[in-house]
């Protein structure tokens, strides 16, 4: 599958149609999202006062973003005091350049990476490869899609779209002998064996960061496999790339963050490894990196503060909104043409990478509100999706037919008289197109679908005539 780096109306429709027809993919999506949803529900039910904790977290995130410059400076100051080197990147390219510079200075040929959405966002692997540096993804899911040459399809489960048969095929090619798709432990063991040598040989480890704690200048990384620990412990140099919005004021707030993150993401009470890094190895320590670099990535985020979209920066990338989204569950992550998919992707992708290029995404929602319900920070994604739709209308980004149709709908729905008149007209006009299974109009409403025809009597009339009693 290609990575279009855009999602116009026609691109999204096309990729979604292909995805919906892909039975294997549909099975994989349903299996994965259901599993995540059940896990989350169980974990939050087991946590006392989970709803109050989410309200509390919302307040923390809002107050942090309101005072972001303060916390960023504090983070920088404390991290520097602990011996880390802090860099600021305005754009993705700036961040890439900082990484390449460090890699060149240290003569790095091999890089191990732990899963990081920020590095996906700035296309770091492509840049490393173009400069003769080999990046090896070490999160099992990321490694699978790296071998397949695909972008991630879920914020926390990058390879959820892959079946074990596809994984076995990829791994078999890598080790040069056939591996059984039914032996998942065996596949995992092969990955452990192959990646272990890379961990120990790499000159540089690159990670993302789940949060940065201002109070102590600490970077926090959450993983299950242990690759995050390896990437940040084994190589002599560690670089972390973290969005400027992922700052947390102090350890008390971080506890709330961590109490909600894994529960919302995978349904675990806590991920297996939560690693807190405060500067490089100290002089009397037996191991750990000699250098730690923290790159604070803006890439469009700072423009959102103080706008109606600031709330989107409260996101902690748990993926819960993806798992409950009826559009994501059918279209899959790749249709969004962005590392960020699902409801949060539909909001931040156009904001960070261009509304015109991603015009389909604000429309890729039923506005059912399930995302807002699931979000640990209670982010009002539907509100922002609607706002983005308004922006699209204002910027004339909608196809003219849709614009005219909506203007017409607004006109009809604007008065009861017009509504009555046009319903009557419709009942008469639909006759030539009426079939047993609904209306077959000459314009397409999606493959294999029919609109229901207008009822002989509208509900309002049935109600007024008292025909609804006892039915």
């Amino acid at each position: 599958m290609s990575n279009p780096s855009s999602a116009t109306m026609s691109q999204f429709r096309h990729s979604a149609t292909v995805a919906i027809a892909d039975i294997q993919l549909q099975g994989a999506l349903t299996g994965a999202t259901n599993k995540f949803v059940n896990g989350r529900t169980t974990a939050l039910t087991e946590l006392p006062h989970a709803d109050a904790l989410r309200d509390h977290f919302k307040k923390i995130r809002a107050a942090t973003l309101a005072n972001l410059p303060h916390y960023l400076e504090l983070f920088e100051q404390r991290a520097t005091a602990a011996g880390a080197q802090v860099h600021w990147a305005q754009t993705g390219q700036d961040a890439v350049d900082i990484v390449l510079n460090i890699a060149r200075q240290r003569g790095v040929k091999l890089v191990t990476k732990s899963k990081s959405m920020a590095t996906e966002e700035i296309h770091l692997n492509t840049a490393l490869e173009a400069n003769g540096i080999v990046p090896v993804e070490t999160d099992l899911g990321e490694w699978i899609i790296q071998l397949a040459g695909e972008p991630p399809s879920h914020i926390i489960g990058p390879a959820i779209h892959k079946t074990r048969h596809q994984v076995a095929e990829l791994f078999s090619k890598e080790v040069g002998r056939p591996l059984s798709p039914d032996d998942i432990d065996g596949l995992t063991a092969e990955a452990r064996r192959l990646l272990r040598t890379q961990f120990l040989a790499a000159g540089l480890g690159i990670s993302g960061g789940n949060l940065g704690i201002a109070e102590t200048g600490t970077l926090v990384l959450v993983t299950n496999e242990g690759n995050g620990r390896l990437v940040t412990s084994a190589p002599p140099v560690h670089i972390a790339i973290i969005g400027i919005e992922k700052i947390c004021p102090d350890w008390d707030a971080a506890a709330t963050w961590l109490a909600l993150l894994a529960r919302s993401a995978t349904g675990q009470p806590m991920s297996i490894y939560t690693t807190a890094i405060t500067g490089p190895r100290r002089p009397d320590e037996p191991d750990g990196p000699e250098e730690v670099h923290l790159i604070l990535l803006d890439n469009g985020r700072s423009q959102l503060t103080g706008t109606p979209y600031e709330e989107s920066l409260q996101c902690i990338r748990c993926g819960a909104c993806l798992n409950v989204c009826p559009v994501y569950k059918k279209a899959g992550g790749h249709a969004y043409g962005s590392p960020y998919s699902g409801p949060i992707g539909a909001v931040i992708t156009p904001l960070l990478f261009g509304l015109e290029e991603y015009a389909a995404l604000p429309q890729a929602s039923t506005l059912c509100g399930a995302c807002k319900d699931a979000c640990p920070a209670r982010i009002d994604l539907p509100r922002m999706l609607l706002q983005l739709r308004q922006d699209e209308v204002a910027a004339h980004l909608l196809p003219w037919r849709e614009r005219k149709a909506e203007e017409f709908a607004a006109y009809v729905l604007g008065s009861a008289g017009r509504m009555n008149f046009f319903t009557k007209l419709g009942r008469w006009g639909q006759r030539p197109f009426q079939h047993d299974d609904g209306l077959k109009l000459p314009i397409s409403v999606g493959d294999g679908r029919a609109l229901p025809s207008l009822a002989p009597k509208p509900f309002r009339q049935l109600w007024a005539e008292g025909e609804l009693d006892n039915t």
Partner: protein
Amino acid sequence: MNPRDEILARLRQAQRDETLPPPWQSRRDFPELAARFRQALTAVKGEVHQVDSLAAAHDLTNQLLRQIEAEKVVVNDERPLHNLPRLPHITYHQVGQEDAALRDFCASADAGLTSADAALAETGTVILTSGPGKSRLASLLPPVHIALVPTAALTTDLFTWTAGFNRQLPANLNFISGPSKTADIEQTMAVGVHGPKRFIVILYA
């Protein structure tokens, strides 16, 4: 302006004073911390043993090392491990001595022995820190990690821990809540991806 100042300048335009809510108070109240710890950790395939003295913890450690037929064992320089009787057929690496050889040793070791600074009952989590004589790789590279943890190190959850924590951070602090695992292939759980396959906690009184 440099990138830093430009970013901060943009952010300052929207800066406003909003106070943080006071720290969340733990709503947990476990009748017995050790019991909850055991339940939480075993639920994620960790192993928990409870013994009533450090000497018993040492016995159990050596019994486990014999069981897994360990030949190479890396030992952190931490108080609970100081008097651990050494088994004759095992080669030990004592962290803090000949650290140049530490990494290679860890990569081929059968087990790593550590203590822990604290443990969280709610989630079956132990907290390990780096420092002099305390290796990060010792609890990471070998397939088996055994942690000897005094019961007194148990606290209720993250909230009670942060409330009592002095904010003196080591370079590396790890919350470990089970053996390394993945569910990246068809959401099927597999244990021991990059970190230890077995995570054994010995709680001693």
